[in-house]
């Protein structure tokens, strides 16, 4: 099978990133090339996504080595929806970066590392091999280590040491888990793993291995083990924080979904119950954090945590409706979280203050910006017709179908807390008496507001056009719910 196009989301960002290393002094050229690349990648992703609808799941065997022997990329609707959204969001964050990141960053290989980051993210979504997933994770993480420390401020270095240490530790766990898995099953091809687990039965040993994977991916996704997240997501420059908040946890979430729907789905009473408990606790702790802090960046970071909990509720109940809901919600969350982080960063850039009670009346100085805050609040709270709504309804429907009323209650209470925590920002910082006099007003840069408006258009059109993407989403959920579809696409035809 020959589908070379599906390797492009990995290889093009890497090659372009490397070329940008040679163009270090030419900031303008770097900007244009990186933005064009990301838009091109979004176009290619859309093309692949549509091709999957007509031709079924696509796969590419690297170097012609057929599965289960070689490494391969597998593009199904689930993976491609993530890739498409990630690329669009990255393009928009780049537009924000043009006007905010500063020349010193741009000359210190900012654009190459963003491209390497997106290459790792895309690779993680597309790979069909567990070890290759590890490699793509590392590509992404190495780029993120650089991006989180770039600039070298004291707070950044303090938080990034935690971030780096925790990720190296979890990568080590990942490697150990891979070794156990290979020792137990003799393969690392995901489809082949799924087949073998089904053959030998998911005994206590395999369930234990699956729990190690659960721990690893939970660390990456910020499911329960999120203690490193709020700190390290709130210190880097806004555009980078937005990229992290929108994309990095999603890769962990993707890996959790893939592993526990394709490979380890035979003992839901153990693994999925555990995921459910972790998701519930994450929701509660995330809510506490989102209400407790007054720093806008920390509120935004805890909102990331809440979203992770919410999305994993969909995996814990694991009905087709809830999986569909989670997919909708991930797509929505990438867009809305990027927007939230950009807004938080812009508020700080405009006022020079980080606490919501120190900022007031921004809507009088920047009316459009103020209304954008309102849009993101409604969107994240799941108010129709914005994009959070569909996902929340479907996850709720799944939870009712399977009788998980505690998770249902927690999930919807968390929506109220999200609404409250963001309304607090809106009421205290956006409304009220302005603290900025007309003379002191810092002009809102065009690039900043354009990218925020673009994301707002994204969340509105995702909500209004839910019908339009429902075909893709239900195909993705169908593949997740029926592992045989995926296995047939990978291993079928060469037995």
């Amino acid at each position, binding site marked *: 099978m*020959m589908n*070379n196009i599906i*390797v492009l989301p990995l*290889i093009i960002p*890497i*090659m372009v990133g*490397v*070329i940008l*290393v*040679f163009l270090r002094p030419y900031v303008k050229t770097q900007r244009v090339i990186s933005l064009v690349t990301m838009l091109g990648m979004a176009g290619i992703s859309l093309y692949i996504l549509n091709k999957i609808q007509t031709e079924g799941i696509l796969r*590419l*065997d*690297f*170097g*012609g080595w057929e599965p289960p022997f070689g490494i391969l990329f597998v593009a199904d609707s689930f993976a491609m929806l993530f890739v498409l959204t990630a690329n669009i969001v990255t393009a928009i964050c780049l537009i924000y970066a043009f006007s905010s990141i500063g020349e010193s960053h741009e000359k210190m290989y900012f654009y190459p590392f963003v491209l390497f980051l997106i290459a790792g993210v895309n690779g993680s979504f597309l790979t069909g091999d567990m070890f290759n997933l590890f490699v793509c994770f590392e590509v992404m993480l190495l780029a993120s280590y650089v991006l989180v420390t770039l600039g070298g401020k004291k707070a950044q270095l303090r938080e990034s040491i935690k971030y780096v240490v925790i990720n190296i530790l979890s990568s080590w766990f990942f490697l150990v888990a891979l070794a156990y898995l290979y020792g137990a099953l003799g393969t690392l091809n995901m489809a082949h793993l799924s087949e073998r687990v089904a053959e030998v039965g998911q005994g206590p040993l395999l369930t234990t291995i699956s729990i190690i994977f659960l721990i690893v991916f939970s660390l990456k996704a910020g499911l329960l083990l999120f203690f490193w997240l709020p700190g390290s997501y709130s210190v880097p420059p806004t555009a980078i924080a937005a990229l992290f908040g929108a994309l990095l946890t999603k890769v962990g979430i993707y890996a959790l979904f893939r592993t526990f729907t394709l490979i380890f789905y035979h003992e839901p009473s153990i693994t999925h119950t555990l995921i459910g408990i972790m998701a519930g606790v994450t929701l509660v702790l995330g809510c506490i954090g989102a209400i407790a802090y007054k720093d806008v960046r920390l509120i935004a970071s805890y909102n990331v945590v809440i979203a992770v909990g919410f999305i994993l509720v969909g995996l814990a109940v694991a009905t087709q409706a809830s999986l569909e809901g989670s997919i909708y919600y991930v797509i929505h969350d990438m867009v809305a979280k990027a927007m939230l982080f950009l807004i938080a960063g812009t508020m700080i850039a405009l006022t020079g203050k980080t606490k919501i009670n120190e900022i007031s009346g921004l809507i009088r100085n920047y009316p459009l910006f103020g209304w954008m805050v309102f849009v993101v609040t409604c969107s994240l709270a799941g108010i129709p017709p914005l994009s959070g709504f569909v996902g929340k309804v479907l996850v709720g429907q799944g939870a009712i179908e399977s009788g998980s009323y505690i998770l249902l209650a927690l999930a919807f209470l968390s929506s109220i807390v999200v609404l409250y925590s963001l309304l607090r920002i809106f009421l205290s910082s956006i409304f009220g008496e302005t603290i900025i006099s007309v003379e002191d007003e810092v002009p809102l840069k065009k690039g900043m507001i354009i990218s925020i408006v673009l994301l707002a258009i994204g969340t509105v059109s995702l909500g209004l056009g839910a019908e339009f993407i429902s075909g893709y989403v239900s195909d993705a959920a169908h593949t997740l719910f029926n592992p045989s579809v995926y296995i047939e696409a990978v291993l079928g035809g060469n037995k």
Partner: protein
Amino acid sequence: MKINDVILRTVTKIVVFIILTFGVYLFLSGHNTPGGGFIGGLVLASAIVLLYLSHDIETVQKSLPLDFKLVAASGVLLATGTGIGSLLFGAPFMSQTFAYFDLPVFGKTELTTVTIFEAGVALAVVGVVVTIILSISEDE
């Protein structure tokens, strides 16, 4: 105080060539026997690091005027380029091919596209290792 390192410098002059030869040998034997671009690259890098240790950074940079960050970048470009190259021939990504040629000195020799890929890996490893060592040494 100037350290007397005559012995180190003299030994380095000879040993560097042995290491470089060994590195190239490892690199060329890579695709069929133990060795390869990664290991070869590490050995090559160790030769350069030894030069930096026995002489000072300025002297080495005068005779070896390379920006090792760019060396690493061109390595990655070369390695990914060979992967992309197979797309031009309608083969799956990362496909390789090989053939036997009668070369004047070597006789019947196997030439393969893997070697180009490995050359990219080797360059990337040399570039990264030397960059890391240099960054550490710059840190006072």
